[in-house]
Every structure is written in C-alpha cells, then in structure tokens.
C-alpha cells in the first residue's frame, strides 16, 4: 500500500514549478496538455456515458420500440404514467423501487461498518496479515453469476447445506432462505455483504494508512485511550474515504440486479424484484424502452438527491 503523506508532496512542489517557468514560450501546449491526457477517457465517457444519457432523455419522451419504424412522440406521458396510481406500470415500478429502497436501507449500514472493522483489524501487524487481506478480498473477485448460483444451492430450503448444518446443530432446518419473507432479505443482504465487503475494506485500509502516524503518537502523549484515538484521529482522518465509501455503496446497492435475479428470481411473488430488474424487464423484454428510460431517470433522480444529501452531511467542515 502507498504510504505517502501530504508533507512529501509539498516538498516536491517547488521542483515542479522550476522547469515550467523556463518553458514560458509554449504556454498553449501547457494549457492543452492535461486535456490531451484526458482525451482517451473523454472519448469513452462521451460515447458510452454522456451520449446515452442524453439519448435516454430523448427516448423517454417517445413510445420507443427500437424496432418500430416510427417512434411516436408522447411528451411526458411515460413519466405521467409512473405517477398515475392504478396502472400496472405504476404498481410494479413503485413496488420495485420499494424493494430497491429496502435493500439499500438494509445493506448500506452493514457495508459501511463491517468493512471498517475488518480494515481496522487487518491494519494491525500480525502474522498472516497478507493472507487474511487476500482472503477477505477473494469473494469480490468472483462474478455475480458465480456467487448467485453458489448461494442459491447453499441456501436452498430443501437440499441446501446451510439448512443441513443448522439441522446438525439442532437449529431450525427448514428456513426458506430464497423464497420466503423476511429470509430473502437476510439472504440477499448477507450474500452481498460477504461478496463485496473486501472492496470497501481495501479502500478503508488505504485510507487508514494515509493517516499520519504522528497524530496517533501525539494523541497517545495527550493520554487518549484506544477508543478516543479512533474517535478523534481515525474517523476524522477517514472522512473523505468514508464519504466515498458511503456514496459508492449506496449507488451499488440501489443498482442491485444480479443477486435478486439469480438467488430469488425476484420472488416470492415479486417482493425482491429491484428497480433495475423491472427496468430491464420493461425495456428489453417487453420492448417499452421509452417507459423504461423514464423509470431510469426517476431512479437516477433519487440517487442524485441522496448523493447530494450525503455530500452535504459529510463534507469536511472548514473552521
């Protein structure tokens, strides 16, 4: 892990200024340089993010079947339908938004706290440290298809290992982990935490190593105990990392698709059909791309609002 600190960067700064002063003649080149470096990424960003995003708005204003020769302009009808109670689209869409909301609510706190604890432990010096770091990260390497099918079998009510071992321990052994409420949520959240905690832990770990050890020494000299050092040194030091982790975890949870698709197939009924699942169903299977695009924008709107709130609350408060 990188152990540079801010002191080092400041020391190098003058060296960076000096050669630039000599090349005053080519100011234009200097202005363009950073942008030229960004060009490859910018091209990808424009082609695969920006254009589709604006194209999506255009689609959401049409009855858009990409195979139909004429795409009928419907204005805001697709959006209006999402806010008209009584239609089936309204019912299924908000049900799926509810499922996404529930999953986000249950999974985000766990995915913020547990990886932090894991990172704090892995940040200690002990034998086999690298082994455990690798082990906690390992599940993240697997694709969602692998973990989905793996856990579907492990968690099966009738033939799964989880119930089998629960039975061996004398515990209830007929829990329908993948097809009954509330167990489906416990399974989905549990599997997701197991699967992705390594990623958040690695980010925390990098953040922890970025905290100046001198601050801990100073705190110790001041007589701070472990808990006080965590509260007054570690947490404030992690604030930008925490903001990042919370933001990306909320976004990842709100975009959950594969786990529900494979583990519970959206069931029981459609209790675990998430918003992204329903959007895919509406757009790709039922060919109502316009309506699906409108749904994506409603979902995106919620995510933007949540992300802004997140930034407002966690932004570093300048004195």
């Amino acid at each position, binding site marked *: 892990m990188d152990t540079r600190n801010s002191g080092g960067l400041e020391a190098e700064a003058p060296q960076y200024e000096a050669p630039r002063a000599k090349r005053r003649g080519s100011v234009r080149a200097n202005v363009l340089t950073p942008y030229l470096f960004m060009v490859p990424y910018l091209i990808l960003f424009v082609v695969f993010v920006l254009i589709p995003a604006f194209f999506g708005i255009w689609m959401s204003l049409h009855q858009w079947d990409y*195979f139909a020769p004429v795409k009928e302009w419907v204005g805001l009808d697709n959006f209006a339908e999402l806010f008209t109670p009584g239609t089936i689209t309204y019912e299924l869409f908000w049900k799926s938004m509810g499922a996404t909301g529930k999953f986000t609510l249950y999974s985000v706190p766990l995915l913020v706290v547990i990886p932090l604890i894991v990172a704090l432990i892995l940040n200690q010096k002990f034998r086999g440290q690298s082994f455990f770091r690798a082990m906690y990260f390992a599940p993240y390497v697997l694709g969602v298809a692998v973990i989905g099918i793996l856990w*579907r079998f492990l968690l099966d*009510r009738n033939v799964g290992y989880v119930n089998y071992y629960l039975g061996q321990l004398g515990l209830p052994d007929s829990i329908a982990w993948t097809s*009954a409420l509330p167990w489906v949520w416990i399974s989905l959240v549990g599997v997701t935490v197991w699967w992705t905690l390594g990623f958040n832990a690695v980010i925390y770990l990098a953040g922890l190593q970025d905290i100046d050890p001198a601050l801990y020494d100073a705190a110790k000299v001041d007589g701070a105990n472990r808990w006080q050092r965590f509260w007054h040194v570690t947490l404030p030091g992690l604030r930008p990392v925490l903001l990042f982790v919370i933001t990306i975890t909320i976004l990842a949870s709100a975009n959950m698709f594969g786990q529900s698709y494979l583990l519970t197939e959206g069931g029981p009924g459609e209790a675990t059909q998430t918003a992204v699942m329903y959007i895919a169903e509406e757009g790709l*299977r039922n*060919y109502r791309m316009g309506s699906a695009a409108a749904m994506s924008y409603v979902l995106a709107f919620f995510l933007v609002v949540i992300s802004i709130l997140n930034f407002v609350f966690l932004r570093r408060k300048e004195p």
Partner: protein
Amino acid sequence: MDFDQPVNRSYTRREFLSVGAMAGAGLVIMSGCGGSTSPQTGGGGAGYSGPNVELDFWNGLTGGDGPYMVKLIERFNSQNENINVKMSAIEWDVFYQKLPSAISVGRGPQVALMQSFYVPTFAARNIIMPLDDVAQSLGLKASDFTPAVWEAGAYEGQRYGIPLDVWPYALYYNKTVMEKGGLDPDKPPQTGDEFISALEQLKAEGIEGWWIEPTYPTVNWLFQSLIPQFGGSLFNEDLTEATINSEPNLEVLTWLTDIVGEGYSPKNVGTDTDDTAFHNDKSAFMWIGPWQINFWKQYKDLEWGVTTVPKVGAEKGTWAGSHNFVIPQQRNQDPNELQASKVFINWIGENSAEWAEAGQVPARESVRETQAFQSLKEQNVFADELPYVHFSPKLPGFDDIDRNALAPALNQALLLTKEPESALDEANERANELLKESRETYEG
C-alpha cells in the same frame, strides 16, 4: 455461446462416401449410430447452386441439446459445399433481447430457431418474415405435421415459423423411490386419483413424492398442462379478455396447492432442485418436458421411466412448445442467402430423427415414422401425447403476461402465501391491463 464458431471442416472419408452415395442414388446415408435412411424430397428446398454463402444461425440451445445440433450442422456443411452455417447458441432469455437489437442495426442472423410461444410477438413486431412462400416452395404440408404443431407456427393467417420439433409435458417416475414406497414401479399412475393415492402412500413412507417447483417458467407450463384437462383456458376464444380466474383454472390451482399443503411436495422448492431430488432418489414424480431424457441418462444408477400425463380432469391434455425455424427480416434480403436458408431449414427438418436423440420429438410425421425415431423409446411416449397437446395462446406479448401476471400468482399460491382464488383474481386483472397495453403496442 459455446458454439460460437464456424463448424466448417474438411470431409472425413466416411462423409465423403456419404456425399457420393447421395449424389448417386438420391439418398442420404446417415452417419452415426442409426445408420438409417431418409428420403430426399424435391422442391425449392432441395438445392442451392449459387455462389458461396455464409449463414448465421442463432438459437438458444445452450443445454445438452446444443451439441446434437452442432453435429447435424457439421454434416450439413460437409454435404453442401457452397453453404457454410455458423451456429451461435445464446441463452433463450438473452436471445429474445438480442435478436431484435441485432436486426435493427443490420447484424441479425439469416436463420434462427424460436420457441413457438414467442412467434406471435415477433411476427407482430415485424422482426420475422412471413414464410408462406418458403413453406410452399419446400413443399411442406400441414398434413405432414400434427395440426396443433403446424398451427403454432402461424399467426393471423400467415406462416412465420417452420416447426422443427415438439416438446409436451409428461410424467417421469423414479422406479427406485416407487418401490421404496410400496408402489409397482411398472405401473405409474394414469389418473388423478391414482396419482394422489400414490403420493399418499409415499407420504406414509416419509417420502415427499412430487417436488413442485413454483417458479417461472416450469410452473407456468405445468399449470397450462392441467387447465385444458379441466376445460380451462387463459383467455377467451378471440383472445380479447383474460379468463385466468375462471372456475376450472381455480380448480387446477387448488389441486396443485393442496399437493403442497398436504405435504406431498415440500414447500419452497428452489429452481432445479426438483431435478436434484429426482435423480438422488428423493422424489418419485416429475412433470416436465422431453429435454430431461438425456439429463437422466447421465445418471447410471437412476432407475426411471416416463409415461403420458395422468388424466386429472375430465379429459387428457398437456402443454407443449415447439422450436420453430424463423427467418429474420433483413434490410436488404439477399436472394442467395434466402435460398440457402430454405435448403438448410428443409435439410435439418428431414434429418430431425437425429435431432430427436437430443430429446425432442420431430414435428414431421414422416420423420416420426422412421425406424430411427421409432427406436427411441422415451421420445415415443411424448409422441403419443400429440393428439391432446395444447400450445400457449397465440397472442403478441403473451410472454409479458406469462411472466408478470401469471407467474407471480402461481408462485405465491404454491408458496402458500396467497389463496389460489385471490392470486388468480389478481393475475386476471393484471393480464387484462397488460392485454390493453400490448394492444396499444402491437395494433396502435
């Protein structure tokens, strides 16, 4: 995607001889185990003499049946020097999403297979071409196909699909488990009463005899197998209104949920674990299609049999689907490619006795009468069901209703979290809404 490579290779000596023999005697000598012969009919499908063409052939045969199709195509390619068929197997679910988008950007395949219940949707959306002239120039006649199978490839009076095979639901039984339960393993139940009393007897021995998987599409096809037996249907005659909550359908769903309620089936059976239970000698029965035949054959210790569906209602009946050849719309249809596609479709159809080894029943009666097919014991049980097979309603957008109205209702009823009556009422209401929506989509 496993088969996403051209199956083009040089002749083996044996194949070379076959081709020679065909040219000489007008007969195709089949290589492989059967060694039987099939007549080579004339007409528009017999030959293609234009420049070399390459045909992309898409289908969803990602399971155990894929390799059989690849084998057939290899033989086709070696016998037709100027046609090279390249098969891509894409999971059905993805296939139906990928096909329209590929065609819309002009990169669609020249030929594809499609499950019969998707044909009306794709026909109504103009994604596939009417094939009446193809059927005519191939000399295909309804009389060579079972009427129900032939009809499944038509929509609004036009033909869009050339049926390759047919796969009805039937009853598989595990002989070991039946014996364990004190049942005669050579006398599988033939009626609903016999079936229930067999389940009762198994239950007394502590065996959950039939694991009902309550998820799409397995349960939808089971439900559609039973409702014709009780005189039920999903829609009225002209498909303008849903009849999902009709009395016969409720009777069927109650019969099914009682099986779970009585403990003849475990609750909350997970996807595919009904298979697992069957081949591990934990369950005695399974209602499913012929694709299971080769799956069971992998398990050497498994003692199993298959019989026609029990008569639970007033008359026998079962649900069936069929793989149909379709030709996607092309922006600029190349007449050479079209002719080559016809030759290909016809050739596979005529040689479908080999395809039957993959588990399916050939759609053509002339092929079902061949020695090669007659010798396939299990497949013939499914063929026996042909007089009373029922296909899904020929309604554009039916798959939407199947997944979003019917599936959740059946799922919740069989998980015993919703009463059958209210489940079907809700499904019916949704189906009518979706019907309205799809009318706007497909007719508006």
